[in-house]
């Protein structure tokens, strides 16, 4: 058999296998959406799981936790990424030590992060199973990933931009905040959105920090110190992802499957939305500002 024949056969195999896998992935996602669509309706989205099969509170909890997590992690990740890329000498011991540590942190299994959160926040600091425990644990999970992605975006801005700013007598800090940061922003936004997707679907970090129960919330009560208030950060808060895990390990039978399928549709739609937004930032926005 000559090499042309081999080439023909092997490229055919490559195309064929890819086609099959793509077909499989597509049908997997379509199956998830189709089998859950019937469960999703207004009632499902607006009732509490305590009184029916709705996911109203879980949906709110997920969004609330996501918001708090990003609010806490973003400034820290931004600062740490700047320190690593724009301040510390990249060949120095400190920089390589810090980078190594952040790499380790980012590849830790999320259950470990969750257990650490459980140990420190729930037990040691006595915060209990609460939104604040969950948000901080998610921050532990999110920080290294976000730091790394922001660092990559900052590195994408040419060194000479910093030099030009400094040579104009602009302070290093203002060169960073007024020139480099705006230029890196599309990349940073896309990193934030991607990390938001991961945080939104994360469950292992939360089962022992934010807890596995969703007490019915009173959406007319905006006093953050009232236990029934959705804003209260000291109440336990089950999220969508934890809800799926919970109902399926407790085996609620047919109801569990229906609730899960509906919840999965919501999760996937949100992740899909995040993906599209990230794609928008990394292509359209970059074209607008890019060099």
């Amino acid at each position, binding site marked *: 058999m000559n*090499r*042309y024949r*081999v*080439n023909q056969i092997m*490229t055919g195999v490559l*195309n064929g296998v*890819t086609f099959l*896998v793509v077909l499989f*992935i597509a049908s*997997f*996602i379509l199956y998830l959406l189709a089998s859950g669509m019937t469960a999703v309706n207004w009632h499902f989205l607006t009732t509490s799981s305590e009184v029916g099969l709705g996911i109203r509170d879980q949906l709110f909890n997920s969004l609330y936790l996501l918001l708090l997590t990003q609010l806490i992690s973003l*400034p*820290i990740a*931004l*600062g740490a990424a*700047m*320190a690593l890329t724009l*301040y*510390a000498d990249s060949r120095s011991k400190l920089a390589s030590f*810090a980078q190594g*540590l952040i*790499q380790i*942190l980012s*590849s*830790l*299994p999320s*259950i*470990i*992060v969750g*257990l*650490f959160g459980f*140990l*420190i926040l729930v037990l040691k600091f006595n915060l209990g199973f609460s939104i604040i425990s969950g948000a901080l644990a998610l921050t532990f999970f999110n*920080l290294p990933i976000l730091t790394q992605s922001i660092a990559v975006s900052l590195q994408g801005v040419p060194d000479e931009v910093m030099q030009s700013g400094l040579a104009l*007598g*602009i*302070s*290093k*800090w*203002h060169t*960073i*905040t007024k020139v480099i940061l705006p230029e890196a922003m599309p990349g940073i936004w896309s990193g934030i959105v*991607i990390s938001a997707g991961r945080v*939104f*679907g994360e*469950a292992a970090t939360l*089962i*022992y920090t934010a807890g596995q129960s969703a007490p019915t919330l009173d959406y007319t009560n905006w006093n953050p110190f009232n236990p029934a208030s959705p804003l209260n950060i000291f109440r336990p808060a089950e999220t969508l*992802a934890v809800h*799926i895990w919970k109902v*399926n*390990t407790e085996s609620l039978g047919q109801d569990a*499957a229906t609730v*899960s399928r509906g919840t*999965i549709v919501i*999760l*996937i739609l949100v*992740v*899909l939305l995040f*993906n599209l937004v990230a794609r928008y930032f990394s292509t359209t926005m970059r074209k607008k500002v890019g060099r």
Partner: protein
Amino acid sequence: MNKQLFNSSKEIRQDKLGRLLVYSALTVVLVLACAMLYFIFSKGIATFTQDHINFWDFLTRSNWNTDNLQKPDLGAWALMVTSAETTLLAVLVTTPLALVIAIYIVVMSPKIGGRIVQPLTELLLGIPSVVYGFVGLTVLIPVLRRWAGGTGFGVLAAALVLALMILPTITSLAVEALNGVPQSYQTFAYSLGCTKWQVIVHVLLKISAPNLLVAVIFGVARAFGEALAVQMVIGNTVQLPLGLFTPAATLTSKLTTDMGNTIDGTLASNALWSLALLLLVMSLIFNLLAKLVLRRSQSRESISR
């Protein structure tokens, strides 16, 4: 004389503020990392220092019995074997597929690859792990049950769920690895009359081999550390996985199911922290491996240039 040169200015204050802010942020991250490593380490060794469980026994025995406090029979061997087995199976299934898809995206059809195949695998990357667990539970397990009898729960179910989960991880890293090979190498090989297949095998795969290996290592790390999806389909019984359909438990699934039922400070709780420590150590080892592979390939590259 030019006195102005020595005057302080707002720029100097701005820089002090900036340096303070960024280094504080970095300190927070580093302290967090160190705290995490320290606390898990110190909790994890309490089983051996406080409860006087023999370390070697812990590594080699397969029972998990913490009820009898006088004579506890504790060992992580079965959990470790199950973790390793599910991970290995998953990687064996996924790696060839991921490579094929990556090659398709980079070489065969960058257009369709970039517009359809890559976004689709990226979407898979974003799907939460509990969703994989749920599909394993409701679709895969009934199929396995019909096909092989028994409950369907077990090592194979976990491995297949993991295989799908790490497909996007390995694929996207493999795409990066293949894209790292300069386009000119391909062009040069084609100009010598190589067929596409020859270019793929002798140029692309050969040059990017270390980075592809790193992609697989990260896939392994993700599979090894995944907790909930595995816990949902593996059956959660601590025993040596004798067959593919034996219900078993992994390090992660054991942690998931039991941590909520133990009281802090007791042997049952400490023993779980020892599992967490094992998991942490494995994660460090995967990291180290990836680093070693990269360093070796880089040093070889720098010699050949």
